[in-house]
């Protein structure tokens, strides 16, 4: 087991290097960081050339990559081309916000999906199953930005017009009150619910499908045959195996908690990583993009490893070679 983990960790080094090379090339293809200056009527050709030289855009691409890599190895993610701030500081400002939003959404997802998924599988074809399935599907089937805007329309604009207690339409806290727990929680409800409910649908589907499959298996039938109560059969025997795909799903979602949710953050004006990424993707600001990428891809690699280890824990028949 330990050897397996060490080997996987060693394998991840070339993987990470590969990811950075591919991403660096893709970012380069996606546009030119100088575009913003080329369209600025107050920039002379000399000024443009000076900026290109200052940021190293005049060097060949592989040189730009090596400069970037050698800095990152020393723990320096460099400076943004547009805000000129250290990338580590920019990420540091946004990461906690994204974790709050995504963490809350993740909790909502699991809190909704696990009980409902189990219920839906155990009481297959009951009215409750149809209702849950139906609602989960509806939430899933709505485009996020539309759902978000509809939620703002209803819970914040209309509720206010109707004189009902209403929720804030966007932002992370009311600046005049300050960043208090209550404020953040209040502003968190809409975006976290939208995100949480949308992904809950996926989890419910997977959990239900996998539990149904497990329930029909021989060992569950055996458990039933030996007279165990249905409750014990489900909770002691079936769930553990049925959780395998859900764990896979959850593990693969964890890195994205750090990456944030671009569209939800846009719609609800949440200052998270998704927006940071997009705002700088538009400007081809590669130090920021690569910084985010390194963090997220390291987490992806790590979480995939964790998922594999968890399989072994959940299903002892899997051996590691």
């Amino acid at each position: 087991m330990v050897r397996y983990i060490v080997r996987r960790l060693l394998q991840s080094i070339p993987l990470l290097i590969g990811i950075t090379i591919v991403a660096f090339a893709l970012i380069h293809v996606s546009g030119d960081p100088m575009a913003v200056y080329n369209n600025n009527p107050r920039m002379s050709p000399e000024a443009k050339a000076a900026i290109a030289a200052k940021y190293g855009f005049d060097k060949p691409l592989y040189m730009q990559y090596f400069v970037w890599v050698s800095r990152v190895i020393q723990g320096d993610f460099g400076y943004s081309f547009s805000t000129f701030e250290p990338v580590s500081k920019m990420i540091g400002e946004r990461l906690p916000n994204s974790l709050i939003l995504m963490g809350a959404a993740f909790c909502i997802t699991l809190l909704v999906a696990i009980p409902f998924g189990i219920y839906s599988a155990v009481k297959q074809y009951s009215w409750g199953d149809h209702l849950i399935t139906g609602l989960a599907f509806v939430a899933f089937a709505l485009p996020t930005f539309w759902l978000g805007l509809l939620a703002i329309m209803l819970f914040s604009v209309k509720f206010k017009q109707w004189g009902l207690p209403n929720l804030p339409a966007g932002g992370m806290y009311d600046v005049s009150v300050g960043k208090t727990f209550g404020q953040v929680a209040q502003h968190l409800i809409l975006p976290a619910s939208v995100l949480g409910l949308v992904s809950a649908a996926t989890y419910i589907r997977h959990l239900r499908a996998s539990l149904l499959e497990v329930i029909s298996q021989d060992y569950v039938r055996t458990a039933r045959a030996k007279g165990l109560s249905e409750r014990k059969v489900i909770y002691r025997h079936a769930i553990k195996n049925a959780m395998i795909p859900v764990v896979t799903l959850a593990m693969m979602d964890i890195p994205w908690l750090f990456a944030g949710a671009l569209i939800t953050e846009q719609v609800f004006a949440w200052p998270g990583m998704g927006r940071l990424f997009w705002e700088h993707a538009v400007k081809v600001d590669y130090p920021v993009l690569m910084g985010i990428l390194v963090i997220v891809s390291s987490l992806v690699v790590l979480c995939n490893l964790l998922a594999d280890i968890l399989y072994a824990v959940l299903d002892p028949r899997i051996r590691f070679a």
Partner: protein
Amino acid sequence: MADRAVLRRAEDVFATTQHRTWRQLVWQRFKRHRLAMAALGIIGVLLVLTMLGPIFIDRDRAYRPNPRIMNQPPSRAHIMGTDEVGRDIFARIIYAGRISLTIGLVAVAISVGIGTMIGALAGFYRGWTDTLLMRFTDLMLSIPSVFLLIALAVFLGPSVRTIIIVLGLLSWMPLARIIRANFLSLREKEFIEAARCIGASNASLIFRHILPNTVAPIVVGATLGVGTAMLTETAVSYLGLGVQPPTPSWGNMLYNAQSQMWNAPWISVFPGLMILITVLCINFIGDGLRDALDPRAKP
């Protein structure tokens, strides 16, 4: 679609042992799922409407702008109203449906094909094959899809075909991981050991013995995938990277309607509803299929 291929192979396995054919059995089970049957009916109607509609509806109604009648509410002349440049929303919905449904179905076919293949090979052969394929999966998972989308659009030109390819190439990874996990688990089972003992080839083990037993996640993944692909198309439209105008898709119709959302809600409501209904129906069908395909479910 890939489902059908899977189904046919599963049929071979069971046709010999079952009294009724596998196909009949599945259909019989599927029919009991009333929601899925209703959904199948709706999707059928939608497919007919969007595929045949353009024959009956003049292209100009969907494409010819007339700003003089923009943002008009539903009326007898325009049953769904007119959009932000005065085109008939109903006609656009029909024309867009073709594009959106094609995007959803073809992208998923690509994604299921790649995902199943990679997951099966990795889970079955393990070792270096597994390591390489899974690290490749990790790589694909780690690179933000926005860049792949943009980069491919730069190479291939922003077109519907590009979006289909990109959505297909970007969505197979979770399925591959799930299939691999199932393969890892199934290949240790007694019936596989038995099959191996009687000299079944690797291909036969993969396609005839293991794959039919992991149909459930493939079907669930594929159906949710069609919905996801259509929703992703909407999301990339929100970022301005979707199907380019003047070609309509439900996603870009919804996106363009955004700024009129509060004062001319019909412009966004209809494409939004179409996406909702389609994704919903496809998922119900997937649900019904899952139940029907489960080889161990009681007939």
